[in-house]
Structure formats: C-alpha cells, structure tokens
C-alpha cells in the first residue's frame, strides 16, 4: 500500500473519468458539460504521464499530455464561442432547448 505504483494512478484516473462522464451526461448547463469534458481529458493526461513514468520511461506520454492540454484549450475556446451564440439565439443555456433542426 505504501509503494505508489502505476495502478494507483490508473485507479484515480478511472474515478476522474467516471465523474466527468456523469457530469457530461446529466448536467443541464452547457458550460457544465464542458467542465465534464475537461475532467475526462485530465484523466487521460494522468494515464499518459503515469504510463510514461512507470512503464516506458520515455517522454512520449508527457508530449502526448502536452498536446492534450493544447487541444483542451482550443476546445474550450470554440465551445464557449458556440455557447455564447446559443444563449443569444435561444435565451437559455439548457442543451435540451436546442433540439430544433430547422434553421
């Protein structure tokens, strides 16, 4: 129990992933769904760095995690721009309100 290994990090990341999944599935606010996506991406980052630290010993995982951080920032910027437009159009941020397919 005292020696921290790969499994500890992977279990923590699995918990983080499930929390993010629940947040994405149930929150009634589009920004909340974005927050859930950030949790899932962080879980993936922990996994990558843990594998690179405990298994390969190479820096691959760290570089992949670096790309994840960049992609998450890009995703957040685009998502917020879309949400602002959505709010302006429908007057609410509930993702269920935008179910009309006709423009």
């Amino acid at each position: 129990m005292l020696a921290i290994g790969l499994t500890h990090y992977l279990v923590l990341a699995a918990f983080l992933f499930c929390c993010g999944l629940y947040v994405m599935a149930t929150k009634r606010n589009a920004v909340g769904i974005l927050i859930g996506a950030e949790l899932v991406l962080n879980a993936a980052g922990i996994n990558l760095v843990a594998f690179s630290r405990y298994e390969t010993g190479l820096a691959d995982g760290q570089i992949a995690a670096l790309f994840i951080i960049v992609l998450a920032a890009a995703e957040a910027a685009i998502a917020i721009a879309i949400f602002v437009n959505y709010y302006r159009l429908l007057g609410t941020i509930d993702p269920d309100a935008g179910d009309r397919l006709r423009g």
Partner: protein
Amino acid sequence: MYEAIAFYLLAAVVAGSAFGCVIATNIVRMALCLLGTLGGVALLYFLMAANFLGVVQLIVYAGGTLIVIVFGVMLTSRAAGVRLRPKRSEALAGTLICIGLLAGLVTLLVRTAWPAAQSEAQAYDVAWLGNELLSTYLVPFEMVSVLLLAVMIGAAFLAQPSGKDKEPEER
C-alpha cells in the same frame, strides 16, 4: 514514504473536487471545483517527475482554460443562481452506468499485472522535451499550430455580433 503521503493527499484533493463537480448544482461552484482538480493534477504531474508538464498545466489549464470557462459562465447566466439539477431518471441512469463502469475499470486495473515497472523516475528537462518536440514530434506540433490558428479565427468569427444587430449602424 513521503511519496505515498503526497500521493494520497493529492488524490484526495483531485477525487474530492471531481466529486464536488458531480454534486454541485451551481455552475460557479462547479468551476471552482474544477480549479481544485486541475491544480491537484498539476501537482500529481510534479510527483511523477513531469515538471514542465505540471507548469504548463498550471499556466494553460488553470490559468487560461478555466478563465475562459468562467467568462462563459458570466456571459451565459442571466440570473445569479442557474439551477442545473438533472431529472431523477437521468440522474439514476447516469449513476448506475458510471458506478458500473468504475467498478469494471477498477477490477480490471487492479487485477492486471503490469510488466517491467520503472522504479526510478526519469526527469526530462525542458531542452530535451523541446528537441523531441521539434524533431520526432514535428508533424503533430505543426498540426497543432495550424489548429490553434484555425481555432483563433473560428472563435472570433463565431463570437462576433450577428449580422442583424450590426446592419442598422452601418447604413
């Protein structure tokens, strides 16, 4: 020994604030909980000897992405307290699926015997990572650069005031 104490402490912070995101019904509180998770994950990166990554996580994620999210909250919440309580059936289904998935994943992870563990942490300095990024990982690096440019233009285009609001002023 110290590593174990630090890990359990940080894991408690990360898992606790992630769970806070799950149970929070106020979007501002969710953003605050996300800050706890991001900071904890950055410290976990430090613990895994990924120093540069921890710094980047703090600067870009906790300093940049979170600010963007908070701006989004401020721009889209009309009333102060927007409730985001899910329907009971949705919450039940989500809880069941997530607990099932978590149980499955944890069972799988604990039972798997991972080969060839590295006992010594290998710390890479920034110069080495930079060399790797501009030699082995040059193609993804350039693709991310183009993507960032596209995102910048796209976000500015999407967030501009719509044509209807602007036309009367221009005429």
